[in-house]
């Protein structure tokens, strides 16, 4: 029986299985090599083997194309859709380049322990599972797998106090955020009885606020009804009514044949609607935030029906799954002339909103977004540069995928519980990222603040609440990852040939007059900096302007204004680096160690990508559009 649990049917976790088994072989390889008396330089062989494993994973992913099935397997815990496929592929590519780029740094720092690559591969395994996880347990385990290896990667340089310090800080704060995630998940499980994202989606689909706990009785005609609404609205009574949906119906017997004509916030002109609607059969569906009520009312020809017992549409309504899909198990029966929704299942959705807030905080902790960012500058600065490289480039996509799965795929109906909070968080993170970066003297911490502000920009597209804007979000994440990959590679490459300056943290002045000693690298660096700052002939401009346009589309004018201004401010510290590279009045620059050829090939490929994608962004947009289509298909 146990032999049949892992059969070839479960082929959609094949890359993960391969990576996990390859990891054990790598452990054996490293152990046997390092136990010899003549201790070899093991890091090179481990890096090449690790990149081989990653390339094979890449081939396995591209070869299978199982995402066309859009299946959910392993007992509903692994979802095998396009978003998981594309993000896993991107993570493989990014970490492959990352692994090749950090090789000279590891050799120069004498971090000659084979476990470094092993820990990297463990975290990549965690990220794979995180991308395709479809329930909270799997997501939590994947987060643990990923962050545990990150803690050790941060503390890897044991001879440096800063590195140990960074590791301990990362460990304590990271486990705090994991505990918040667990707390939130356990609350959700306690209230809803499930941990599966698909089941959450089925349970909480639609703009439904709360099941039960309401009393709303109204008798009268439609025009009276609207006039009472407008009166109470003018008195400030009904400002809590968040949704008012009107369903236009042709025939009372044929309740499945309806069409949604109006669904929006309550601020519409009521009188116009009355004039339009009072000749039709109308079902009014109303959500009240304050009372947590959800009322459906039926009007025939503008006049509320008096005797529903005769026409007996209640059975039709309660049995008509096509119409009442979003109401789940609620049973409807008429009283007077108004439909009552009497819930049979009681959910206290306040608890779920609270739990979602906890999960949101924990995920923002992982992404280092502002109120929860304070660990990031210390940890990124203290840990070895190769680990920082990996932290800041690779895991952001996977954590964003999990955030989208939780907050868009499963709990999109709770959208208005977190939209205002996330708006504040965006404004704060953009402000802190821009102003904090101004006073940094070290290149590493400058890049950390830059990443904080970029995560803020990415959250703008996340916060718009429209499924199509996930395209922009995904575009932004891809472009951010590749640009920061480029910047960090150049950061790793510019090793100053000076024994005195062998310290870990690199000042901005280490790059002074870089163009004299290596003008190509200087040119690359400034092009990438301009791209990430958002200057036109590079891809960074396109994604940034898209993000701001999504903010304007979804009426976040204040957020858009603040973030545009802050992006101007953030441009200052990017340009300052360019100024240090090119226009510093200094006679003698610094000498750097040479860069090997294959790394230059990769770097020029990345740079070419950033310009080519501006000229022809179809690839990027198509990929991310397909990604966003998936979420919108599974949403409302």
């Amino acid at each position: 029986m146990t032999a049949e649990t892992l059969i070839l049917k479960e082929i959609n976790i094949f890359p993960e299985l391969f990576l996990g088994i390859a990891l054990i072989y790598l452990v054996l390889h490293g152990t046997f090599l390092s136990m010899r008396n003549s201790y070899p330089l093991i890091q090179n062989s481990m890096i090449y083997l690790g990149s081989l494993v990653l390339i094979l994973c890449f081939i396995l992913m591209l070869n299978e194309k199982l995402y066309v099935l859009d299946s959910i397997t392993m007992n509903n815990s692994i979802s095998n859709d396009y978003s998981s496929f594309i993000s896993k592929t991107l993570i493989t590519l990014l970490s492959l380049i990352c692994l090749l780029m950090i090789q000279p740094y590891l050799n120069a720092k004498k971090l000659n322990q084979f476990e470094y690559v092993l820990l990297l591969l463990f975290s990549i395994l965690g990220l794979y599972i995180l991308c395709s996880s479809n329930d909270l347990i799997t997501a939590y385990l994947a987060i643990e797998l990923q962050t545990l290896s990150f803690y050790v990667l941060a503390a890897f340089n044991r001879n440096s106090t800063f590195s140990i310090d960074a590791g301990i800080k990362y460990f304590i704060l990271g486990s705090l955020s994991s505990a918040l995630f667990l707390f939130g998940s356990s609350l959700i499980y306690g209230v809803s009885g499930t941990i599966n994202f698909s089941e959450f989606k089925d349970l909480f689909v639609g703009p439904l606020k709360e099941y039960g706990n309401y009393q709303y009785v109204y008798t009268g005609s439609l025009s009276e009804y609207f006039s009472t609404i407008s009166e109470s609205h003018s008195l400030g009574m009904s400002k809590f009514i968040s949704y008012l949906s009107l369903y236009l119906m042709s025939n009372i017997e044929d309740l499945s044949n309806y069409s949604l004509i109006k669904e929006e916030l309550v601020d519409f002109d009521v009188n116009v609607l009355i004039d339009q609607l009072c000749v039709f059969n109308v079902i009014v569906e109303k959500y009240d935030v304050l009372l947590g009520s959800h009322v459906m009312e039926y009007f025939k020809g503008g006049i509320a029906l008096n005797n529903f017992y005769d026409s007996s549409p209640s059975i039709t309504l309660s049995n008509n799954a096509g119409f009442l899909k979003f109401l789940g198990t609620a049973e409807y029966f008429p009283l007077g002339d108004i439909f009552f929704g009497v819930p049979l299942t009681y959910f206290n959705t306040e608890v779920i909103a609270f739990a979602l807030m906890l999960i949101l905080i924990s995920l923002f902790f992982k992404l280092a977004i502002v109120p929860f960012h304070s660990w990031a500058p210390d940890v990124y600065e203290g840990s070895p540069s190769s680990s920082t490289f990996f932290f800041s480039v690779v895991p952001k996509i996977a954590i964003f995928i999990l955030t989208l799965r939780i907050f868009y795929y499963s709990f999109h109906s709770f959208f208005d519980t977190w939209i205002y909070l996330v708006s504040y968080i965006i404004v704060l993170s953009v402000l802190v990222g821009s102003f904090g970066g101004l006073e940094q003297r070290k290149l590493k911490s400058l890049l950390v603040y830059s990443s904080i502000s970029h995560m803020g920009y990415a959250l703008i597209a996340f916060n718009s609440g429209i499924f199509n804007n996930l395209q922009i979000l995904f575009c932004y994440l891809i472009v951010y990852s590749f640009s920061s990959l480029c910047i960090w590679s150049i950061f790793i490459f510019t090793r100053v040939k000076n024994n005195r300056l062998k310290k870990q943290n690199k000042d901005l002045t280490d790059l002074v007059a870089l163009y004299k000693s290596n003008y190509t690298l200087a040119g690359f660096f400034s092009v990438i900096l301009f791209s990430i700052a958002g200057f036109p002939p590079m891809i960074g401009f396109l994604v940034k302007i898209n993000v701001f346009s999504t903010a304007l589309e979804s009426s976040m004018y204040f957020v858009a204004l603040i973030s545009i201004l802050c992006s101007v401010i953030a441009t200052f510290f990017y340009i300052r680096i360019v100024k240090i590279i090119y226009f510093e009045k200094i006679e003698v620059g610094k000498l750097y160690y040479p860069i090997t050829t294959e790394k230059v090939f990769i770097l020029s490929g990345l740079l070419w990508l950033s310009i080519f994608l501006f000229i022809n962004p179809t690839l990027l947009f198509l990929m991310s559009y397909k990604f966003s289509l998936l979420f919108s298909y599974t949403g409302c």
Partner: protein
Amino acid sequence: MVINFLFFVFSFLILLSSLMVVVVQNSVYSVLFLVLSFVSSAGLLLIFECEFLALMFVIVYVGAIAVLFLFIVMMLDIKIVSSNKDTIKYFPVGLILGSIFSLEILVIVNENFKKNFYSSSVNNNYYVNWFDKLDKFSDIESLGQLIFTQYVLQFLIAGNILLLATIAVVVLTINTNSKQKTQNIFKQISRTHKNVLLLT
């Protein structure tokens, strides 16, 4: 009713003891409170009829925490009153008394519960609990069936996390650099002025 009362008792104990873990200054007391919180959560699990999980809680957590406790005592060098001076003197007496006592218990249990007193009489009935025979799963059985079939992937990930933890501990503690200068305390203490200074 009783179970509800016990639930509140255990929850209160968990809350109190986990608060005390943080509050108490002495690290040994703090570890003891941690043990108390684990034991009371095991009691909570017993109330929920998860016997296996409760026992595993006690064995794994309390056992592991006891080891941690030992480490702390070792590292912080807390002065413990040497009450174990007379261990060897009292050991044989204690061994004899203890073994006699346990033998008595063993014999009594064996004698009293071995056979049914009604087995020879007409009162003996051959009651078979068919529900237990046919339908009942033990706790371990159902846990095993769930873990090794439904949650096999999660089980594998947990195994990977354990492997990772082992590797991480090795990385952070192993001393590969044999040229590192270390302090040999025995050598330092055993130096006297006689074997250091050579006055001729």
